[in-house]
């Protein structure tokens, strides 16, 4: 039976630095295997579409430029991504991995949330085509 049993705590914390994180000023160090933004490597991709099929949030789309020569572009919608890493697990060729970047997901614009991965010329080709309105709009 005591009264004020947390006295030790409050007394000690007077002389301690507050534990609160000074977030916008001091950023926390991220752990090395943080699940952040996806990185897609076009070189090894065979276009099996397993990652697209398994993605629970329709966050990634594979746009086909040339199926025979295995030219693909991945459109990655970061705002839809739930960072579950299922696509990393699903890919049998190790094309997808998760980086520890981009964990501050806030913007007043939509553009930073749409990322294209692939060979530069493929992306260029695709963007030009879509400007002409030739490619189908993805879901």
């Amino acid at each position, binding site marked *: 039976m005591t009264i004020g*049993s*947390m006295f030790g705590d409050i007394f000690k914390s007077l002389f301690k630095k507050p534990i609160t994180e000074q977030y916008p000023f001091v950023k926390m160090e991220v752990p090395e295997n943080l*699940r952040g933004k996806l990185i897609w490597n076009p070189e090894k991709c065979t276009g099996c579409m397993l990652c697209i099929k398994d993605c629970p949030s329709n966050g990634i789309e594979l746009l086909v430029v040339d199926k025979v020569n295995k030219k693909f572009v991945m459109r990655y919608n970061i705002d839809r991504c739930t960072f579950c890493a299922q696509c*990393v*697990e699903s890919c049998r060729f190790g094309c997808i991995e998760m980086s520890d970047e981009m964990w501050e997901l806030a913007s007043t614009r939509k553009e930073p949330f749409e990322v294209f991965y692939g060979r530069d010329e493929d992306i260029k080709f695709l963007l030009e085509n879509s400007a002409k309105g030739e490619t189908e709009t993805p879901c």
Partner: protein
Amino acid sequence: MEPKTAPEKFIVPIGPQHPALKEPGHFEFTVEGEVVTNATARLGFVHRGMEKGAENRTWIQGLYLMERVCGICSHVHALAFALGVEKLAGVQAPPRAQAIRELVSELERIHSHLLWLGVAAHEGGFDTLFMFSWRDRETVMDLLETISGNRVNYSANVLGGVKIDISDKQADAIRKGMDFLEERTQHYLKVVTEDETFLGRTRNIGVMSFEQADFLGAIGPTGRASGVKRDVRVDSPYTAYNDFPVKLITHTHGDLEARFIVRIQELYESYRLVRELVDKMPTGDLSVKVPRRIPEGEVISRVEAPRGELLYFIKSNGSDTPERIKVRTPSLCNWSSVLVTAVGHNLADMPMILAGIDPCFSCNDRIVTVNRKTDSTQMDWEDLRQFGIEYYKWM
């Protein structure tokens, strides 16, 4: 609910937006002076249609949907789903995967119980305990982030195993964290069992007798605080609980103090278990292959969530999407019993009694479909501002 015939009844509504409970749920307490004479609940404010939604998704996508039933016990939902699907498919995850699954669920229990300790203290107006227990909870949150890469939705499970592995460096971090938490928890146990002002708010409040708890089906720490010996980890061990058994912790009083004691003693048990798991982690593969089409059948998968027994009923029709997934979360079981015990107490005790079962509203509310309108317009900042100006012109 009693018919609302007597008009002179004084009904105090709590919720859906109420500062006491940080999640939306609506309660109506009929009070006479300060004493509650009747209590009813209305849920469904965070109803997301997950059970229906799961029927339109593949098994793999369902795993991540189920992980998002609840933000606090995300791992156990995915675990129950994965275990059920693996049972249907006739595969079993390798031993190391099972041990990692158990490790993550115990770490999750630690963070959930510490969170509850803070919330319950806050309901009782003991903000210092709230701040300190949440400060220490950061330790285990950081550990979970270190090993899984995310603080809340660890997404450790895949069908057939786990994604994450525990390295030696991480194991050391876990051991250190457990030592720190054990020392702090000892202190909190002393505070909640000895502090006079706090005991005034917990002792003999919200008493649920063994008879009530047993018959009405109270589960988890709420039931165990009334002496009901129910713990899925002991009764029907899943994952690695056979090799790393857990001790059943019960208390006899059934009041709020007993619930505090049971939860805090479970924390000790979890610390011990986590240390043991880290020390004697089996080696081997992390996952096995699970077919995309799951054979026809029905399965019941039960796991012990931090709040009590979580029951999944999974029915497969042989295709790559489930036929029916039924989720029965522990909070739903405990609601009915707690509303019975609420009658006769002071209004001031209500937040603590409600918080005493560690309610999780998101868990309860899952089912209806939400149609994503295809013609929805997206507004950017400027549009929104414009919309606001237009809107307020008419005010």
